[in-house]
């Protein structure tokens, strides 16, 4: 199965060439176009219960589509918002994805929901996080460009900028500065991540876009 991410970083999309026996699982609305030789099977995202949990708490879709073919064909997958897409090859390791980041994976990748903790609700990052594990490729997207940091001890990420992180990363919510500074700095609550491990961030946030738009509407 040959894959390629094109039109980075603004309008990134995944082009997948499927051969006989190849299968790809993708978010319900991710398919933009495909060859007519490709079959789609819609299924509950990780089982019924998990799908409902993810839908209600993780703002992921209820269903995922499985694409396969008996001959060969091409498939284009996209994401709802402008931005970058990253591909990661799992080799038995695990990755946590923030709600909305998951796009597609190979069927050997296990999709699960993990409890992120009540504190994440306070930070409006979502109560649940998506847990991807196993072996195979997984694709996730972001609004903005994706950049990563290898964290050895601690790092501060503004809320809304965290996209994905390894399970060795401990995430907690903190204030950007003192009480006055946190309130007036416009940063408010931030995510404090403790390593060692790798985190993926997006260079724009929905909150930032909304604030920019609203500041010009009066």
């Amino acid at each position, binding site marked *: 199965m040959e894959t390629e991410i094109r039109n980075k*970083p603004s309008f990134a999309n995944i082009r997948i060439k499927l051969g006989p026996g190849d299968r790809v699982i993708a978010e319900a609305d991710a398919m933009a176009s495909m060859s007519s030789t490709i079959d789609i099977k819609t299924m509950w995202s990780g089982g019924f219960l998990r799908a409902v949990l993810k839908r209600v708490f993780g703002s992921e879709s209820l269903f995922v589509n499985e694409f396969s073919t008996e001959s060969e064909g091409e498939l284009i997958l996209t994401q709802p918002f402008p931005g970058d897409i990253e591909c990661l090859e799992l080799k038995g390791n695990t990755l946590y994805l923030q709600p909305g980041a998951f796009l597609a994976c190979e069927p050997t990748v296990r999709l699960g929901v993990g409890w992120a903790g009540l504190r994440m609700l306070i930070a409006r990052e979502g109560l649940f996080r998506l847990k991807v594990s196993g072996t195979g490729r997984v694709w996730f997207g972001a609004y903005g460009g994706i950049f990563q940091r290898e964290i050895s001890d601690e790092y501060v990420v503004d809320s809304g900028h965290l996209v994905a992180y390894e399970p060795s990363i401990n995430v907690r919510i903190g204030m950007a500065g003192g009480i006055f500074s946190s309130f007036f700095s*416009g940063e408010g609550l931030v995510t404090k991540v403790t390593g060692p491990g790798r985190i993926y961030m997006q260079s724009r946030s929905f909150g930032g876009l909304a604030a920019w738009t609203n500041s010009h509407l009066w």
Partner: protein
Amino acid sequence: MIEFTCPSCQKHYRVNDELAGKTAKCKQCGGTFQVPMPVVPAEVDEYAVSSAPVAASVQASAAPIAAAVVDGRGTSAILSGNTGNFEYEISQRPDFALVTVKMQQGQKVFAEPSAMASMTPSVTLKAGFKGGLGRTIGRALGGESLIINTFTADQGPGEVTFAAGAPGDAAYYRLQGNTLYVQRGAFMLHSEGVDLTGKWQGAKGFFSGEGLVLLKASGTGDIFFNSYGAILQVDVTDQYIVDTGYIVAFEDTLQYRVTILPGLRAGGKLKSFFFGGEGLVCQFSGQGKVWVQTRHVHSFLSWVHPFRPASKN
């Protein structure tokens, strides 16, 4: 495209035709040279910026120092360098520019609220009214926040990344005792040594509506500003006209005057009214640089607005 090598260090360059005859600085050895004239008849470069207007040349780059020479893919390159104060990198260009600043212990950076995307814990964030009451109100008149965030690397060296809210590019400018005017909302961050105040536009500001509200940055230091869309740097040598909504920043060596677009002048206010409030332009004269953004906030909003949910009472 013009292909040539630096006369002193033999570094290979490919630059756009517009740069022919210009003096540029080598990225590698720092030596200055003149870009040669194109040898072959100019071929069309898909990334090149469209034709330059009379008496002004446009180049698709943002930083005045690092990007005097544009690479083959134009604006998509990562801009990085050392400002003398700190190392910086502008990545994810031009769509979602991210400014990374690497600070030494004890260094300070001053930024627009909510511009921070991430930072090391060795950096402390403090919000405050900087520069006294007059400056604070000046900034508010300039359309920026009353508050300026101070990032201090007080617990060892650290890095801070900054991102704007709007999709677009960012650029770096080094102030050397001169003054730079920055359009409302375009200011991102500045280093120590830069003085940021609001500039009361008087009648100029009044007539241009929300189109031209400026911040004045002066002193010696670094300033970063962002745009909605890509940033074009224009070297004005005589006269140049920019729609007020597209101005990002300009040097104060330029005189400027806000007027109605020359073509609309005959019909006066009426024509301008039917034009939907558009048609206000800034007329620059003299010598200096203007940075122009390739998208307009208000055009975006009027495109988006009909789709926004509205509560009907």
